């Protein structure tokens, strides 16, 4: 009985230690942001469907906004969050223009890839 109780308390102690070791620090958010940015960049370079490339750009933008919010919390400064608002607006405008170009282009040739966008020059 006694030994069981001591075993339980020592288990609780290791639990507490584990919890303090696994505290979520801002660095975790920064690592997650860099992972998302990296995945988005790889997708942008590897895929050739213009729509999917656009989604990868959105991924990269979101990774950056996550980083901005994290730094805003680390520095106790609302400036980072204000910039995120502007990033959102610019991303929305970018989506409108980009999808407009894609619609105008793919309507002619649904099979087109990003390589075929070379005919847009001139």
């Amino acid at each position, binding site marked *: 009985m006694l030994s069981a109780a001591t075993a339980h308390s020592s288990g609780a102690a290791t639990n507490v230690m584990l919890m303090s070791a696994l505290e979520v620090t801002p660095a975790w*958010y920064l690592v997650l942001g860099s992972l*998302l940015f*990296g995945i988005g960049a*790889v997708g942008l370079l590897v895929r050739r*469907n213009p729509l999917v490339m*656009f989604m990868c750009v959105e991924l990269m933008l979101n990774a950056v*906004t996550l980083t901005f919010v994290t730094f805003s919390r680390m520095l106790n400064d*609302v400036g980072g969050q204000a910039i995120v608002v502007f990033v959102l607006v610019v991303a929305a405008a970018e989506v409108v223009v980009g999808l*407009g170009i894609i*619609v105008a282009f793919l309507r002619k040739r649904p099979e087109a890839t990003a390589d075929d966008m070379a005919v847009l020059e001139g």
Partner: protein
Amino acid sequence: MSVELLVFVVAAAACLAGAIGVVASSNPVNAALSLVGTLFGIAVLFVAQEANFLAAVQVIVYAGAVVVLFLFVIMFLGVDQAEDLRIEPLGGGQRIVAGVLGAGVVGLVLASLADTSGEATGVPSGVGALSDGTDLDLLSNAIFTRYVFAFELTSALLVIAVLGAVVMVRRVRGPEIVDPGQDEREEELRERRADAEQSAEEPASARAVRRFHPDDTTEADADEAEEVRA
């Protein structure tokens, strides 16, 4: 397991799974739905960092408007059939370069984080400390006082973007614009499909010889298009 840790792990898993889904799914509709997973995960992480207003905007603007716009374009154009991922991603060389670059981005951040003690330093922006009030109060104060000029510029940007989209998508009345290279490109796509099917059974060395060279054909097509126009 603390609540914060649980929230972070679940949201981060949703983000990463969604991001990989965007890059790796062959059907654009699946990619768009995976993107929703990532955007929701990021909204949850915003709440976890007490950026409540931005989390709401993230869900409404991104998961609501932007993804619906993507899906609308996919359905409108009828490009929702699955692509052949053996052809569609660029061949070996560029995939390796892309992987190295992506790993480099992540590695740089990890290296710089390992180098510091995890503390950020910098000069305060002067628009307010987060501990002074709610995030919505502080954010609106910052946007409508310090950043009001930038705010006005973004409204102009939105109007210009909408006008640009209307001009580009409008159907032009008049003679049909012909695309001189279209037949050749379709032919070439069929060849690439056939090649990929063959090379699935061939060893890698044989595949390298018949690899598709995109530069040659696109340049030739562009030249041809100019000639016809002239």
